[in-house]
């Protein structure tokens, strides 16, 4: 039952914001691969929602409207920065779907602990580089400059970190498990380069 007489005021916006902001950020992040950019895009989507609040269809769920806005902004961002690949986005399940609660829901505490363990298991330098990249938002070049090593080394270590995560977390991401056995990649962890 649509509530056509309900006023879309500041309180309405705040409730929508607090319910959907995080999920939409995770959704946007999937596209743009950068946390700050994702947040800006979602903020812009809410600005857009507020500006159009009197014209949007009250019968349709606001979440779809926001999702569509976010997705379009993300695609535009990728195109503008020449990082758009429809084929890759298809594989990432991003080209058609809107923000999906299942895919984007915040990770359970048990899995969080496993992730912590997985990071702690990385070799020391690898771990340090990984943390600088993910938690201090540093680019490969910045990490290389700070640690006085080559960008190639940073790249190799980041790759090794991701490889380790894939093996280590496979059993917690059930869909992946049987795929690992088809293509054992952990052999690459021990390759000497970098």
């Amino acid at each position: 039952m649509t509530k056509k007489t309900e006023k879309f005021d500041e309180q309405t916006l705040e409730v929508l914001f607090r319910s959907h902001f995080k999920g939409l950020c995770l959704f946007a992040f999937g596209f743009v691969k950068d946390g700050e950019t994702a947040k800006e895009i979602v903020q812009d989507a809410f600005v857009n929602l507020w500006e159009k609040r009197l014209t949007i269809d009250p019968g349709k769920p606001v979440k779809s409207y926001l999702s569509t806005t976010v997705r379009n902004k993300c695609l535009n961002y990728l195109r503008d920065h020449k990082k758009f690949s429809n084929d890759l986005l298809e594989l990432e399940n991003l080209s058609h779907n809107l923000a999906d609660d299942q895919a984007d829901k915040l990770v359970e505490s048990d899995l969080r602990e496993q992730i912590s363990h997985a990071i702690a298991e990385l070799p020391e330098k690898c771990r340090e580089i990984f943390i600088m990249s993910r938690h201090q938002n540093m680019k490969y070049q910045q990490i290389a400059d700070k640690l006085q090593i080559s960008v190639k080394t940073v790249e190799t270590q980041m790759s090794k970190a991701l490889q380790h995560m894939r093996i280590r977390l496979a059993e917690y991401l059930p869909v992946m498990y049987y795929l690992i056995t088809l293509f054992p990649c952990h052999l690459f962890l021990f390759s000497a380069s970098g």
Partner: protein
Amino acid sequence: MKTNDTYYIDLIARYFYGEATTEEIGLLEAWVKSDPVNARLFSEYQKTWKTVENTRIGNSIDLDHEWNTLGSKLGIKEHEHKSKILYYSLRIAAIFLFLLVPAYFLYQHFDTPAEQQLAAGNEIIERTLPDGTVVTLNTGATLTFNPRFDGSIRRVTLTGEAWFEVARDKRKPFIIAAENVRIRVIGTSFFVNTKSSNDTKDIILSSGIVRVYYENKPQTMALLYPGEKAELLSNGYQVIRTTNEDVNFLSWKTKHMVFINTPLKEVVALLTKVYHSKISLSDAQLSDCRITTTFDGQSLESVLNVLKATLDLQSRNTGSGFELSGSVCKQSL
């Protein structure tokens, strides 16, 4: 063949970590399309990456800060008392809205007291002040203020540690008093500690600009910019301005901790503070063991599990907390 695959896995990592160039994305796309095995591998890495990143990002988003940011962009008016009560209701379930609405009407009919005090006992508390400013008080902190914020300034008095997200109001500067120190802001986010370990008042700024000065000697002041820290001596008049090196200054609020080559004694000190549980080391030798890792909004038990597994330690419940013990410091960490 092996070298080739390593190349593409490195490329996959570059793609997901935002480093891939246009050309590289083209190469990756071609590789993925060339063989379904490659496509499946790409998908697996994507799921792995997304899961790890979701944890980190989910915890790093501060909704209050983001809402403030949006509010500024939209020029939304200052919050009135009404929205303050609705704000509380957002945190409880929607069904309580009906209980709170009558309370709102009651609130209107009683005179507000001259001064109100917020005090955090054993729990961190977060409140929205009548002007829309959101303050988070660490345990033991108190904030005193006149709820009407009448006059030409908005003034509060603080003891202890707090995080402020000050609502923008150019007409009325927001001033925090901590003994003889004053912090003056217009609209911004920052952390204040009135009782730091070196007997200084510390202010760490995240966004905006603040001015810190002594009440009776306002010319001894500093302008702080984001990422900077100011320490004001308690005896004497001196403001020391530095770049903030402490990434964990807000861990008490966010439960997000980053350790890079950090000695275990510091890790344990921070855990004690953040989780209000006395974490100690059985052996002085363990103090200098170093660890590099992060924790994201986990329980103390979870954090200790990771520490124990990583450094090969055991823990013992001491009643007031936990004691960590272990034989030798694993140098490889």
